[in-house]
């Protein structure tokens, strides 16, 4: 074989080996680190797995936000107007988190059907709605402001 061609073969082999190692790493990292999104109706219907990292999004039910007086614990409910999921979160909520607004909570569902959230994502400007929440609301026949369509 021509030396240049042989060298090219080795380079390709090296890249192939390295890429397969990287793909292995990607698959390994993917296993535990992707979170499925569930609308509240599916969570209440028992379709969401318990004690696995998931995300639930919807509107924060008006009047449902309760803050503990002695810690940073917050309880509230997320709804898609078909069903509501209780959420508990300890920590500081984002500025744009508010009752009657869209939010996405990620965390684990416990045995009592309460989502123990580790992160709350609220919208970042007045008109923005996380696409999943918009879809979930639309599926239950409501628009982004929470009004029936």
């Amino acid at each position, binding site marked *: 074989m021509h030396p240049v061609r042989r060298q090219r073969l080795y380079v390709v082999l*090296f890249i192939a080996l390295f890429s397969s190692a990287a793909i292995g790493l990607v698959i390994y990292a993917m296993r535990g680190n992707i979170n499925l999104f569930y609308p509240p109706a599916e969570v209440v219907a028992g379709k969401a797995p318990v004690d696995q990292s998931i995300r639930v999004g919807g509107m924060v039910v008006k009047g449902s936000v309760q803050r503990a007086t002695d810690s*940073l614990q917050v309880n509230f409910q997320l709804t898609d107007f078909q069903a509501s999921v209780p959420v508990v979160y300890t920590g500081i909520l984002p500025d744009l988190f508010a009752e009657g607004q869209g939010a996405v909570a990620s965390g684990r569902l416990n045995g009592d059907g309460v989502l123990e959230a580790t992160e709350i994502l609220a919208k970042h400007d007045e008109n923005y709605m996380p696409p999943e929440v918009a879809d979930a609301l639309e599926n239950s026949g409501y628009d982004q402001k929470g009004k029936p369509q």
Partner: protein
Amino acid sequence: MIPEIGHFALIIALCLALILALVPAWGAWRGNSVAMALAPSLAIGLLVFVGISFICLTTAFLQDDFSVKLVASHSNSLLPSIYKFAAVWGNHEGSLLLWALILALWTAAVALFSSQLPLLVLSRVLSVMGGISVGFLSFSLITSNPFARLLPAAPADGSDLNPLLQDPGLIIHPPLLYMGYVGFSVAFAFAIAALLGGRLDASWARWSRPWTNIAWAFLSLGIMLGSWWAYYELGWGGWWFWDPVENASFMPWLAGTALIHSLAATEKRGLFKSWTVLLAIFTFSLSLLGTFLVRSGVLTSVHAFATDPARGMFILVFLAIVVGGSLTLYAFRAPAVSSRVSFGWVSRESLLLCNNVVFLVATLTVLFGTLFPLIVDALGLGKVSVGPPYFNAVFVPLMALLVPLMGLGPVSRWKRDAVERWRGELAIPAVVAVLCGITLPLLHAPYNIWVALAVLLSSWLVLGLARDLWQRLRSASSAGQGLARLTPGYCGMLIAHLGFAACVVGIVATSQYSVEHDLKMSPGDSRVLAGYEFRFVEVVQVRGPNFVADEARFEVTRDGVPVASMGPQKRRYLASGSVMTEAAIDAGLFRDLYVAMGEPVGSSGAWAMRLHFKPLVRWMWLGAILMALGAFTAALDKRYRRQREVIHSSGEAVLRGA
């Protein structure tokens, strides 16, 4: 009137861009030198008209012309002037106009500073850039006209700029980021011109290199500012979230890093030619993909703002044309530009090859993680998100693999080197690096193995650079003369690699050593964090130009010695009524203290507070600044500017022959 002038200027700019895209390219094809010679003046005309349009929009913002829809929805008469100016690009339409302006700026810069280029190449390059301008200007005019009016019902006042964007970091972050994003269009245009001409040699790489370096430097600064802004403005002390929009700017950076290194091999040794061209196409395509991700709102992101699906469609089609077209051209012409040069396994070429493989794989894994939710959604398998753990798990090992090779890079030789020589050169640096890795983390208890590893790797990198520098200086008659003999290209490499080392140490140390507490505090309470005592004195009401705020007063002491007074705020903006956290940061080279307010807890005047201690967090941003500085320095190298006559004549001859 002024907005109409702006609109009209934008339409003229689109016409000029169309002519620029077609006429010089036709001239290059038919050998018509009159048509080719039009390219530079058209490029400058394009800049003038996009510039007029941009100035008109800025004027509308500064004069509070609320009959313009964009101004009405993104500005307010109470907004300080500097933020009225920044509000021009604090929204979709305006940021697109800024993008078009910066593209016109780069096009005109190529036209002005490339007198050493053969006319044939220059006209092709400018035509390609004109084509990209056509895409963005028509996008702006068709789907997101910044000059749309609200007549006759103009509101009395505007609904204010999103408070998150009312910040000095946001005044310069988008322009810098776009300078980087758009700057890669120059490398892309050079690559396409080379494919069209079928000629790709050392002088091609020499023309592309400074442009690529400068674009990369701007992108580094833009990303660094974005990270810094997120750190102090979003109020939760994080500096990188692996958010789709961050990834959108990070992917072109990674691919651009690979491009810079493969261009070095192409220029010095005529290697990896077709690969370099492919990388240039890939890098710019990632810039466009980033624009698509940010502007279409298809992904859930902390950065996402309200969007319109028609816009996403437009960019997607544009992206498909650019990527599809350039890859088709590549498939036809790449064999014409491929190289037949061999190199030894132990050589600088091999190391650069490894660099390219690592950076490309890193880009692809980030790309995969970013697009995975879209793919799953498109297949109807549900809605998933890929979290930071995925990115950390794949990205950190890749970078850890890279640094040992980076230590070898500077001392290695082109063509053929010997392991024995490397061993001789680097035995002492290796021993010292191991010592540093073992001893330096002792300064901070408890001992942390990851920090030790980071210190080991980065001191290996720094000492490898130092060894090579010492070798160069030793051969000179005096140190001063030795320094004077160093080329800007070499100094740039030195500075940028040092910056990378600082970044590695900063990221690992701040990730491992940070102490973060979210807690409830009442006035009078104090809390000790990493040896610093934070005393919450009181909450006072303060008033800003367009907001009112609760400000918490903190006194921080260490062993009884006052360190800082900090005043984090919870602001309520008057026009929009939105609430915003303004964190207080006491910055230092070795540690940051960070206090942010949550919300009131209970009725006794207590607040949720976020207290952070972040060691070495500044090193990460300083490192990024050094990297950018290095790339700028390297772009100053004299060899990019000389030999214009020689290249001109011989270039023409070769082109005619091809």
